[in-house]
């Protein structure tokens, strides 16, 4: 029972994180820097707990504040100076590397590239330590990540229905033209960036507390940032459940191959995944769910036409 539950938790958690990323990605801001926000969330909470005994709930507030500051520090100049496209992707890539290297360099405090474990609060007999945000039962975690995931989808929909989304879509098509009809480009972009960054930070906190282990290479840096970008692309960047489908697809692909071949071919899943990504971007840029919905809609239109005729 534990294994499927673990998979469900991971799918929902990554689905949530990918959804957070896609808030920006679908509006033309392809960030390679979200590993930074996830890393800040994961490490701030664990470090404050380990070194100062600060409850992760309070640590989370500190992490969110730090994330907001970093998001503004990076976002504001980027948007103000019209750093877009490739340049935006590469500036944010530098950001996620800075966070990873900082965590590694502060090895006396963080444990460096060996990672760190939050001090255990679950003593013999207790299964729940609310103050320490540690729960033994996977069911509790399923509830928590499901709530986060639903909240993420709700934010996605709220953004989708807002005026801001229209403004950002206009910006992503033609920034100068959007500015000329009175859209405050910097403000519109900054707002969505902060929302996306804060949500990703929460994802990092949940990931750290669920796994009870953090490592600079798995919660920050270029690898994790790319994982987010491509998970979303695989699932579908422009539909609400696309990022979740991407998370489910990548996880089930990895687990399925592991079940089929054992650990004989350790990187087979990513090899296949990488090749599929290339094919996706060339042949179905809207991702799995996007392409499926498109086909479904076309079929329905055709049958409607037939019925009308």
């Amino acid at each position, binding site marked *: 029972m534990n294994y499927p539950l673990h998979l469900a938790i991971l799918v929902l958690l990554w689905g949530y994180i990918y959804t957070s990323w896609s808030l920006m990605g679908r509006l033309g801001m392809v960030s390679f820097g979200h590993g930074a926000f996830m890393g800040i969330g994961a490490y701030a909470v664990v470090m404050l707990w380990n070194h100062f005994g600060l409850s992760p709930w309070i640590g989370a507030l500190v992490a969110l504040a730090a994330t907001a500051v970093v998001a503004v520090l990076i976002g504001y100049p980027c948007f103000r100076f*019209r750093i877009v*496209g490739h340049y935006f992707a590469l500036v944010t890539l*530098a950001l996620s*590397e800075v966070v990873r290297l900082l965590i590694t360099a502060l090895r006396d405090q963080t444990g460096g590239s060996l990672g760190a474990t939050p001090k255990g609060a679950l003593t013999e007999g207790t299964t729940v330590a609310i103050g320490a945000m540690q729960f033994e039962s996977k069911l509790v975690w399923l509830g928590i990540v499901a709530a986060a995931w639903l909240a993420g989808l709700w934010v996605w929909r709220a953004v989708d229905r807002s005026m801001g989304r229209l403004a950002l879509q206009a910006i992503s098509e033609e920034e100068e033209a959007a500015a000329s009809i009175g859209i405050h480009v910097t403000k519109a972009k900054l707002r969505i960036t902060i929302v996306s960054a804060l949500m990703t930070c929460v994802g990092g906190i949940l990931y750290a507390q669920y796994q009870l282990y953090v490592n600079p290479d798995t919660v920050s840096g270029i690898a994790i940032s790319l994982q987010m*970008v491509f998970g979303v692309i695989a699932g579908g960047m422009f539909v609400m459940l696309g990022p979740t489908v991407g998370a489910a697809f990548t996880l089930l692909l990895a687990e399925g191959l592991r079940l089929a071949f054992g650990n004989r071919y350790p990187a087979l899943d990513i090899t296949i995944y*990488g090749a599929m990504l*290339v094919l996706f971007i060339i042949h179905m840029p809207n991702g799995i769910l996007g392409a499926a919905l498109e086909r479904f809609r076309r079929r329905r239109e055709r049958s409607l036409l037939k019925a009308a005729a």
Partner: protein
Amino acid sequence: MTELLDIYLLEAVLNGLLLGGLFALLSLGLNLIFGVIDVVWICYAELMMCGMYAVYYLYVQFHWPLALAMLAAIGIVALLGFLLHQFVIRPVLAAEPINQLLVTGGVLFFLQAAATLAFGIDFRNLGLALPALRVGDMSFSAARLIAFGVALLGVLGLFLFLNRTYVGTAIRAISQDRAVMPLMGVSGPRIFAITSALGGALAGLGACLLVLQYDVHPAIGLSFGPIVFLICVLGGLGNLLGGFAAAFVFAQFISIGGYFFAIEWGYVIAFAFFIAAMFWRPRGLFSR
């Protein structure tokens, strides 16, 4: 002040200079590709990884002479560059620019994982013990000196090729006006294919220099990739001279930062400098 000017700082500066030469060569191919085709190969460092494995296997496993193994590696990576362009980049040339960046990210995953499958995660090296050159109290590794020399020759060679040859002129012409040059009888697709192979060959040359100094393993691309991109962006993507200069700036930050603090701090400072520089000159330090 005198303390700052000690001999070890001088050594750090000179080593930074040598590292800058290496970086300059590594960023050359990527910059060329961007300047001509307007595409960023996110998987550029993974191509170098392939080249490093090629040298390793030919030299260590098949006992080829080192020079021949290196030449073959350059040829292999050039072929990879050509194939990458024909089968991955060409289909998305008309798509949104960001898709061209992303599609090579898929290749990055593929190459890295395929290398893990094929070669395992072990660190491998050529087992060469190159001597260190000692000047007074300072020491410089011969591998770095060789890399520096070859890098300068490579840069010079590329400039001569672009400026003195017929094909080179065509490449520069296409990069200046993609729409008009085909009307003058320059075949765009052919020039792109040649440029991609040339970019691949430069990645292969970079791989030969890297494998002299570093162990090869499937994730090595992740440790050099970001630096190479940032250097290109810092110099202005597509601006070959800018990238060349930026490589030395970047290497000094790493080397001197590493001298005063630990080596990671050198990287942290260099990356932070990069971000700040982007806000100061968004089109690159050396943009006109």
